[in-house]
């Protein structure tokens, strides 16, 4: 199994969107995919078409002491995912701390290895956005850790302040290609030696929220859209990247 984590540099940059779309794209390219929602917002499932009222998910399973993999669902298009779930967990009052989430993830990763799930399954984890002063949530626990940013001055400044972020690869989402400012910011991020920026950026595309309104990804609702092409390209890049690391190992 290969583990990939996505985390937003701040809230609302499109992390959950990216997880759902990358999962869908990889699935379409014939990979077996498991998406894991580690962010208490519990929104990933909406992209995958789960009804509102269903409350089950990772946390309820852990609370009830049942195995986490029993909380896995399959979307209409065949992507497997584990929602975060809605549950009054004893920890919920204090918020789910970094260490708790990391602890859970470690456990899941270990048990997954023991379960001997399908060998080449790709697991993509949706992490809550980065808090002030924090390191990447799943640093050293995953093969690939993507940091999602928007090409705006805020993200750029924030990225500059936090450099270097060890292990992070930066994914630019919501690029307005017609804005010279954003293109320049993209160029500057790419030119910076401290962070590694993915060669493919995802452009701002209204097809994305519209598809979400249909509880779908753009692959279903707007297959010709720019976003669909961008995410597909990104997925290909990611898969080839993983293959390369495998090679080196």
């Amino acid at each position: 199994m290969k583990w990939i984590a996505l985390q937003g540099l701040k809230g609302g940059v499109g992390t959950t969107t990216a997880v759902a779309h990358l999962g869908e794209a990889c699935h379409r390219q014939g990979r077996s995919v498991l998406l894991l929602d580690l962010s208490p917002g519990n929104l990933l499932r909406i992209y995958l078409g789960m009804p509102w009222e269903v409350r089950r998910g990772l946390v309820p399973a852990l609370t009830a002491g049942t195995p986490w993999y029993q909380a896995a669902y399959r979307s209409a298009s065949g992507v497997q995912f584990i929602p975060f779930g809605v549950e009054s967990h004893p920890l919920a009052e204090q918020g789910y701390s970094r260490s708790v989430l990391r602890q859970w993830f470690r456990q899941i990763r270990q048990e997954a290895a023991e379960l001997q799930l399908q060998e080449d399954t790709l697991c993509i984890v949706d992490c809550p956005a980065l808090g002030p002063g924090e390191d990447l949530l799943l640093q050293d626990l995953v093969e690939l850790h993507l940091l999602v940013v928007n090409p705006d001055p805020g993200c750029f400044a924030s990225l500059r302040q936090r450099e270097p972020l060890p292990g992070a690869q930066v994914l630019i989402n919501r690029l307005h290609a017609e804005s010279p400012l954003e293109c320049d910011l993209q160029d500057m991020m790419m030119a910076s030696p401290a962070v590694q920026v993915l060669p493919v950026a995802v452009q701002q595309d209204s097809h994305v929220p519209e598809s979400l309104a249909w509880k779908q990804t753009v692959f279903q609702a707007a297959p010709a859209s720019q976003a669909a092409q961008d995410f597909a390209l990104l997925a290909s890049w990611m898969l080839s990247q993983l293959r390369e690391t495998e090679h080196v190992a």
Partner: protein
Amino acid sequence: MSLEALRHWPGPLWWLMGQLFRLPVPWHQQAAMYRWWRKWFPHVDILHPRPLDVIRIPVQVLWLLLVIPPGARKPWPRIGEWLRRLEHVSIGMLVRVFSTENPGPVAKKLHSVMREMVEHPLWDQRWFRWPMLLLGLAGAILVVTVPYELETQLWLLFALLLAALLIRRIPGRLPTLVLMAISLLASTRYLWWRYTTTLNWDDSLDLMLGLILVGVETYAWLVLLLGYIQTAWPLQREPVPLPEDESLWPSVDVYIPTYNEPLHVLKPTVLAARQMDWPADKLNIYILDDGKRDEIRRFAEKVGVHYLDRPDNRHAKAGNLNHALTKTHGEFIAIFDCDHIPTRSFLQTSMGWFFKDRKLALVQTPHHFFSPDPFERNLGTFGQVPNENELFYGLVQDGNDLWNATFFCGSCAVLRRGPLEEVGGIAVETVTEDAHTALKMHRLGYRSAYLSQPQAAGLATESLSAHVGQRIRWARGMTQIFRIDNPMLGKGLNPVQRLCYSNAMLHFLYGIPRLVFLTAPLAFLLLHAYFIHASAVAIVLYVVPHIFHANLTNSRIQGKYRHSFWAEVYETALAWYIARPTTVALIDPGKGSFNVTAKGGLVEKEHFDWTISRPYLVVLLLNLLGVAFGLWRLQAGDPREIPTVIITLLWTLYNLLILGAVLAVAAEARQVRINHRVGLDVPVTLILPGLHRVQTRTVDVSEGGIGVELPEKNLLSPGQRLEITLFHGTRPHVFPVVVANVFGHRAGLRFDHLNVEQEEALIHCTFSRADAWLERDRDRKADNPIESLGEIFATGVRGYGAMLRHIFPLLAEKLPILERMRHFLWQLLPRYPVNNERMYP
């Protein structure tokens, strides 16, 4: 004899009686009889007789009785079927024999054996090498001069043929050299035979014609030999990277000479030149405007490039460049004709060699055209058959490069200022100043280099007459150089350089030889002159290996860049026009200029260029006359002459074939638009209202617009405004467009008032992309002589068709009677019986 028609005679008789005497005949019998009639007399409606049926019926009866074979209902289709099948099989076999794709394991093994032989250390020993070379030479002399008896020649023919057919299956360059040797042996032997045994010294007419032909053949042999030397080993030089330290990079002046070309032609070139990757403070762009136009001056100011004009216009382009040379100070000079758009990588690719080689004075890159030249347009071969240009840039210049003999071609090149000033600037003595300048620099010991990646592209000449005019200029200029600064003479060149330059110049003397080849068989057919004093069998036995091996070898060397026989079409089409200026220039290099009037601009209506094709029409008529004479000679002449007549007729037929293709060139196809569409397949994003982005791919671009594919049919509607994003590397650029038209899954978008930056960005994303022209011949087939001949045949037929189509309306306009007469006669002709059972009155 067709007795079948008569077998049922009582029936028709009955019916005829019925018709004539109004006898009551049962209806079903009437129908049967009518059917019988329509079958054998399909063009005569007996129920509505016409006066001329009086002729039609007896003619048809005769035809049925005498011509149509008995019992054969469908005689022809079956034979045709067989012919087709036969043709299929035999052509398929020929094609396979001539194809070199997929060498087998044996061939590969042979290849390595050959390599080992050549790389054997023994060759390094002097005592071995020289004797072997002498031995080889002796062998060659032996092969060339073995007594000219038919039997010997037959054996030799088979030996050479077998060797060539075997060797050509082996991949690699060595076998090519061996093939060249074989071809030279065959051709030299042929020529030797021609000189020693085939001239009739007893008859002065025969001798004169014979000498002319031998002379012309000697020229062809010389060009073949020099061509082999020139293209034996294309260097295929790779670009050299520039030094890391940009401060070491020299300053470059870019000259864009223009005279009367409109701004919209000049603009993309200037904008693209500005974007070339080079430190901005070391790149100076100069528009050299001999037209002294304010519009251009203003444009130059607006985009921030230099503008130069001069008081006079002496020496045209050469003078223009020389004037600029005195005004600017860059260490290097890049020259682009005003319609050659450079890619951004031009300087990065071409400058590296100047660092590596301090004596290097010139780097030339190919001229690539993204629109068809008139030949390609009228022949419909654009993108399929390589044009003249590609042989020259793909092979000749690259072959020259090995011998340090690549010459300057006037555009898409970089020159070092020092050597250029040393030779006194661009040469002004001849009308091909470019080649002459390079020759002068070579004489001073400077070197030149050729890079075969297209780094610039432009529009080809529009009209046939302009194209012809340009070729005349080249031919004349090269001949002038040959006369006033002959590369075989003078100081400073090495022997092979001399040969390469000489070949470049000799090549342009093809005018008269081509005309001689076109008309030579007529000397025998019409004048009954035996200009080749030999038996028909001998001629065949000597000519066949000569022609066969030359074609086989050339097809292998030039496969990708020239298809067999096409060069003949191109050269023949120009021969008449080139013959005179070259001859005059050869006699007196300073004299006269010849130009067909250039019409320029768009070819608005499909038409036949009678002016340009006139000489060929005359030759065509002569050849047709020759064929008629030949047929007559077959009938009435001396029976011992028949083989000779047949060979000569075959030769004439080949000439007629080439002439047909030449006529096809003269049938000017219509040109639709000013802005040429250039195929382009890159991602593009359509930005629809509300920031909906749709990604798709482009189909083509032109200066004014872009064609895109639509993922959904009704995505766009005509008149709609939107923006599109094109990418330059990863950097997106946005352009406003209006939808001009939508056809199913295609839409044409027109750019909507781009400002200068946007225009620049557009060129960046399209024409000046570094990879823009790299895949130019991606899906073109390699040469196959048989297929090539087939194509020429088809083109020739089209050429004759076009000519007739253009003749007949012409005649019909003046003499409508003629057309009517043709019609009249046509309808009197007898017909084949029709086999249609379901025919009712």
